[in-house]
């Protein structure tokens, strides 16, 4: 491939690519993100390839493996172009029928999405409410692009923004445009991206570095991975534009060790961009040079903190350092460094192409643009959701997410990862943006949104996050290392029935100290899970402490399983499924849980048929004694 030396050559290549492609030719696209991969999309892909061969349709039907579409609940997702007919939960066995239907221009009804409310079948991808209720500006191209083929990105107008920036705009003009868009960092803090760029640009010293933070460590958040795996060129293009504005010629992409596909795809993307002259020396004949390197993380949550991440890029232990000198002045190898989140960088080409005014018109006051959230937990439609900032939680959870499964009641939504907090029901109509979330005691974080229902214990949730943070604290500063451990100890005592009066107050005191005195944001925000659950669910803490009762029946040490003799029909289902053999009984003999053998795994409760509902959870009160042997005999009356 000869290098592209000018924007005209880029456009020429785009036209050539489009001319080569027949827009009416059928194409089976398969989502190949990590979610669908886990469902077995590899096998589905192989089945399609084989079927096309078998039916002699090679050359007539294309297959494209795209990035993540976001509707992970229904993987493997298959979309048939040109009409964009969407099939969900596709299995390898379905391949023959689907290929046949493509050949005959028909639709396989049984694989279509059924709207759970209306019961109607929905044929086209974008008409499914999950998609129809979103605004997918950054994430939209994912479903049209094979991330390992740069031509797909170019065909959609890729690298036009870079061409425009390098040949029609000065670095100052690019910077101004980004500043006027009011784009805020998508990694958590929501700091103004333009101002961050400017600080690095103005800092004395050479060379300057630009960095993509793809160390997406928040559990339950995976939008960065979906972008990095599914559309790596959009991130690279944004990074190159940023580098031009800042005056940097060297970029790093820091990817988490747990994301091997992202490492692979971004590596391929860099090589292809270099081949086309979109990275490297004298890009588009503008005289601007820029090269990018990938750095794999090695499994440390704290390394996502900006100064820690930069230390890790230097090949050292990724621990944070005090930031009285900002990393924008002294970052990697003491050079001025600008670090932004994956999603932040991916917004940049859109701003350059469409203008700051366009971007500023999306979203709410001081919170412009869209944001991708990963909607997970106790929600019907698990997946990635992109909406304008300022959208209400209710819209996201109910209109897009389809509500809570199993007829359960919504309890809280947890945002912001381990540094964030839990937002209860009364705030469901609050607009979700950086400022509003902070007001509610939580934060944006990278965009994880974990829905929890009535079966979730708030003390256990706080304990879960503190356990995570205690494990991930690097131990460099004392308040974080020791404070988190002490708070975790108290929370564990509360969950396990060893709590005492005054524990809540002690937790609050510790939380204040850890918050105020820790070195980096990991410790500084570590008390948030405790503080927000205390703010909204203090009664639940009190029930654990005063009555040794877990109202959600989650804390094992405070919960017992008991079979109600009046309801047990001696069906033997729980008895057979109990993994520890703790259930005694037999045919016609009412079952009894041997409390000494029970490990409280809850299998019996889950498995007892709804028509009996004989297994009862008990907390905060003694378990009734088992019935006597005579009382356990069921006498069935013949009808």
């Amino acid at each position, binding site marked *: 491939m000869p290098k592209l030396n000018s924007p005209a050559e880029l456009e020429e290549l785009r036209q050539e690519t489009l001319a080569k492609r027949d827009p009416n030719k059928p194409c089976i696209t398969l989502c190949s993100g*990590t*979610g669908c991969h886990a469902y077995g999309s590899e096998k589905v892909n192989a089945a399609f390839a084989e079927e096309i061969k078998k039916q002699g349709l090679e050359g007539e039907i294309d297959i494209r493996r795209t990035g993540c579409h976001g509707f*992970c609940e229904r993987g493997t997702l298959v979309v048939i172009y040109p009409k964009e007919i969407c099939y969900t939960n596709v299995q390898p066995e379905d391949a023959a029928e689907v290929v046949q239907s493509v050949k005959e221009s028909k639709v396989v009804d049984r694989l279509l999405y059924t709207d759970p409310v209306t019961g109607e079948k929905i044929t086209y991808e974008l008409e499914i409410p999950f998609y129809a209720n979103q605004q997918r500006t950054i994430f939209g191209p994912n479903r049209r692009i094979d991330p390992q083929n740069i031509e797909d990105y170019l065909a959609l107008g890729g690298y036009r923004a870079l061409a425009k920036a390098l040949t029609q705009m000065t670095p100052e003009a690019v910077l101004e445009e980004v500043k006027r868009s009011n784009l805020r960092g998508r990694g958590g803090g929501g700091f103004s991206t333009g101002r961050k760029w400017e600080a690095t640009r103005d800092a004395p010293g050479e060379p300057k570095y630009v960095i993509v933070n793809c160390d997406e460590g928040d*559990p339950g*958040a995976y939008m960065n991975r979906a972008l990095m795996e599914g559309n790596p060129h959009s991130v690279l293009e944004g990074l190159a534009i940023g580098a031009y504005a800042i005056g940097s010629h060297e970029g790093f992409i820091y990817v988490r060790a747990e994301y091997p596909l992202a490492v692979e795809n971004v590596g391929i993307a860099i090589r292809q961009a270099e081949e086309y002259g979109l990275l490297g020396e004298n890009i588009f004949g503008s005289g601007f040079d820029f090269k990018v390197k990938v750095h794999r993380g*090695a499994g440390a949550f704290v390394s996502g903190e900006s100064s820690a991440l930069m230390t890790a890029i230097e090949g050292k232990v990724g621990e944070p350092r005090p930031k009285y000198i900002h990393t924008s002045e002294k970052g990697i190898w003491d050079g001025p460094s600008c670090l932004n989140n994956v999603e932040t960088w991916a917004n940049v080409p859109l701003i350059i192409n469409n203008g700051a005014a366009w971007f500023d018109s999306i979203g709410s006051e001081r919170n412009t643009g869209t944001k991708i959230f990963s909607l997970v*937990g106790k929600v019907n439609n698990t*997946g990635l959701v992109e909406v304008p900032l300022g959208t209400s939680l209710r819209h996201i959870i109910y209109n897009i997410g389809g509500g809570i499964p199993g007829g359960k009641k919504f309890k809280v939504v947890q945002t912001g990862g381990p540094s964030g907090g839990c937002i209860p029901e009364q705030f469901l109509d609050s607009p979700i943006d950086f400022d509003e979330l902070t007001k509610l005691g939580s934060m944006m974080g990278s965009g994880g949104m974990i829905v929890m229902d009535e079966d979730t214990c708030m003390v256990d949730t706080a304990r879960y996050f503190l356990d995570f943070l205690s494990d991930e604290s690097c131990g460099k500063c004392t308040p974080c290392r020791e404070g988190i451990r002490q708070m975790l100890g108290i929370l564990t005592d509360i969950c396990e029935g060893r709590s005492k009066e005054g524990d809540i107050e002690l937790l609050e005191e510790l939380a204040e100290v850890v918050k105020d005195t820790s070195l980096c944001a990991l410790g500084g925000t570590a008390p948030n899970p405790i503080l927000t659950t205390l703010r909204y669910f203090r009664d639940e803490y009190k029930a654990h402490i005063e009555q040794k009762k877990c109202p959600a029946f989650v804390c094992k040490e405070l919960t017992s399983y008991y079979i109600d003799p009046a309801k047990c029909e001696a069906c033997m289902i729980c008895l057979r499924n109990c993994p520890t053999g703790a259930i005694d009984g037999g045919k016609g003999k009412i079952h009894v849980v041997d409390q000494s053998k029970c490990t409280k*795994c809850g299998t019996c409760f889950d498995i007892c048929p709804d028509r009996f509902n004989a297994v009862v959870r008990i907390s905060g009160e003694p378990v009734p004694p088992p019935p006597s042997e005579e009382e356990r005999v069921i006498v069935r009356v013949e009808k």
Partner: protein
Amino acid sequence: MVTVELDKVDEIIDGYVGEEGILIQLLLDIQSELNWIPKEALERISERLKIPVSQIYRIASFYKAMSLTPRGKHIINVCLGTACHVRGGQRIMDRAKELLGIKEGETTPDMKFTLERVNCLGCCALGPVVVVDGEYHGKVAPAKVEKTLKSYD
């Protein structure tokens, strides 16, 4: 440690000589090649790249992706990300611990299984998730853990 393995370590080091800030990437490569990082490998890196062993050890012991003890034939990863946690991931972990008789991060004495916790694999729709040797098992219930583990022999 056998010579073959040291040769592999040497080969990996060869690919990095003369570059800056490579220690983490180098150790990751050794980890993925040998499935753990033996003491001899640390010493070899130190000798060849003139970096003190203490510095290499500090990195190898800091990061979760690096193991300084040999790992089992099958690696079990129980996801305890928030989404899996609210769907009962801990009950799965507890059951696996009971069955194998080991704690998180440990390997069974017969070197068959290593039990590890992972804080989110990002396939939350399938939660609770258990991954064995890269193979995903979704919507796992405590009663299913035994059967799943038995399928790896």
